[in-house]
């Protein structure tokens, strides 16, 4: 086994472990609010992200393509994108109150990625070596990362909403950003996600027509494409209803959380049923 493969094998265990430690530190901060937890949380997350950058770079180098060759790799990229986005949010807002919940999601997604890893099943496709397709894959993963953030904020919104509505003032009250801020963060993430996904879909369609001509049969039926179109439609509909039917924050939050659960379940199902992510084009070496 080469040193690169050794690193990849080690990182696949270290990554979720590091994110777990970071989540625990943020959890300690959320529940106990100690100075020590504050000093540990962000550095642990940064450690995880640095390791993640190295991991993704190693993957790219190893497979000589954008690291989206299977569900495992895609999930890992999503986890990284969420981590990076959260770090920016934390740095800008100087607020760590949502850290436990977001970093826990990052840990969960990376854990899923590690569990689903099947190096021998990674699709080596000329597509992923193509810059335009790589842009498509990147936008799609950014979109999913944004949907993850939207779901996390949606979950927190629902919990806080419930406590404020019922006058319970339990776990979440007093520890999170204001309800209106959570709603704005959720809605912002949804918009970014949908726009990024629109870009991904548009590039994907353009690329598909370029490669397969007008008979789209061979590529439209790709499970991942169908899943993406369904996702795009669902979130687009939610945003439309928000605007036209004046959906309140609660409805949007429910859709955000339910939408992400549906996406994750579908991704896992696609991976196991089809065994191949985006089964497009011929295998390695062929175009």
């Amino acid at each position, binding site marked *: 086994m080469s040193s690169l493969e050794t690193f990849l094998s080690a990182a696949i265990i270290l990554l979720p472990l590091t994110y777990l430690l970071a989540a625990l530190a943020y959890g300690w901060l959320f529940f106990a609010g100690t100075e020590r937890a504050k000093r540990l949380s962000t550095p642990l997350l940064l450690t995880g992200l640095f390791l993640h950058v190295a991991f993704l770079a190693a993957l790219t180098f190893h497979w000589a393509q954008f690291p989206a060759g299977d569900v495992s790799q895609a999930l890992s990229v999503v986890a990284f994108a969420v981590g990076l986005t959260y770090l920016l949010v934390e740095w800008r807002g100087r607020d760590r109150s949502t850290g436990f919940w977001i970093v826990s999601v990052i840990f969960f997604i990376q854990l899923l990625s590690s569990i689903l890893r099947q190096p021998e099943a990674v699709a080596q496709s000329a597509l992923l070596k193509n810059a335009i397709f790589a842009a498509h894959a990147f936008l799609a993963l950014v979109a999913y990362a944004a949907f993850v953030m939207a779901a996390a904020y949606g979950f927190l919104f629902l919990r806080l909403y419930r406590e*404020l509505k019922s006058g319970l*003032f339990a776990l979440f*009250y*007093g520890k999170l950003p204001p*309800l*209106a801020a959570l709603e704005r963060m959720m809605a912002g993430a949804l918009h970014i996600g949908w726009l990024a996904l629109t870009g991904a879909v548009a590039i994907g369609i353009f690329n598909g027509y370029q490669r397969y001509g007008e008979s789209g049969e061979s590529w439209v039926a790709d499970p991942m494409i169908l899943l993406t179109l369904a996702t795009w439609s669902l979130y687009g509909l939610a945003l439309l209803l*928000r605007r036209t039917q004046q959906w*309140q924050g*609660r409805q949007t939050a429910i859709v955000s959380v339910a939408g992400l659960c549906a996406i994750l379940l579908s991704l896992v199902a696609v991976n196991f049923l089809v065994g191949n992510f985006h089964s497009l084009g011929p295998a390695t070496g062929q175009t």
Partner: protein
Amino acid sequence: MPAAPASRQDLPLLLVGTDHRCAPLELRERVSYAGEAAEELLVHLLARPELGEAVLLSTCNRTEVYVKPRQDEGSYQAVLELAFSSRVPEITEEGRLYVKRGLEAARHLMGVASGLQSMVLGEPEIHGQVKQAATLADAVGTSGTLLRKMFQAALKAGSRARTETAITGGAVSLGYATVELVKAIFKHIEATRILVIGAGETGRLATRNLLDKGAQRITVTNRSADRLADFLEEFPTVDTVDFDQRNSAITVSDLVVVTTGASEPVVTAADVRSAMGRRPGHPLLLVDLGVPRNIEPAASRTENVFLHDIDSLEKLIQRNLKRRREEIPQVEEILEQELDHLNGWFRGLEAEPLIARLQKQAEKVRRQELQSALGNFPPETHDQLDRLTRALVRKILHHPSMRLRGRDGRDTLPHLDLVRELFKLDDEDE
């Protein structure tokens, strides 16, 4: 090796006081001092030969006199007569007053400044009142080195308790609980549009609290125009709206505080539904401070409406008080640390005259011995010998001086008398 905790000498301090726990308001108000009366009391206290320094802390919930006695005999009697029994003879009944001495008095003051002794645990106003008491005594000239230092230490303990713990965290009054809810829902209270229905006493209190916390967009309405006019005299920056237009005003508000004396709800569930229909997507916080309730409870069933009454606010206050109580052990730890610092400072103070005598004694011996030995050395070496012996004496005395001052982190010598005897420092200078 970690330093052993320093033993504590007792400070020459006496505290005589009464507070809300041991005396009812009708007694406390008669021993309350403000303005000129406070200054006069301080001057009279210091006129007594038994007392060396004095500071008076008098608030609505406590009156405490801190003194540095010149002599143990008579100091308590002097304070009792001047500050308490001359005004309220019955205050000498058992349990009405408390007396603390030395470090216990210092510890008590630190607890007071930290809000631990307040009627509402953690209330922050007492810190400013302690500061005022120290400033007044300084201005009148009745505080000296010891009391000044003690009050500084107490204020530092109070500041640390506020910044390092959550002892003052969370709202513990109805008005501030409303503000807390606003901050939990909306981002900035400055931008929150507030409607107050009812210009009575409770409405005023709520408005005052909201303005104190930064609210800038308050509109008030009341059935009676006279009462509204009085309200506006006290709060000239608020806007008004006709009572009949209150439903329209609800539509454009984020927070509605209702506090009227009406026996029927002045805001119905239908009113709320209608208002929300005209402002979809914007949450509405309704705070009902009326008894009987001024807002129909069914209004809470509307999406994005958060309705809180007195019971619900009280639940929030109790939750916050519970959290404050959980901070007490941390605050007490801070008090112990500051008490240690104060004690260390005092030990150093006591040791200074002794160190000065020790150094003087050593210098005397050095000169004598040098003088008698100089004849055996060439003149050009005399300066060097002088410098050498000075350095020797300085080096030899350095460690004992540090130990006596307690500045090397270890327990200082508990018996300064022993040091005096060892070096015969009680002998008169020749």
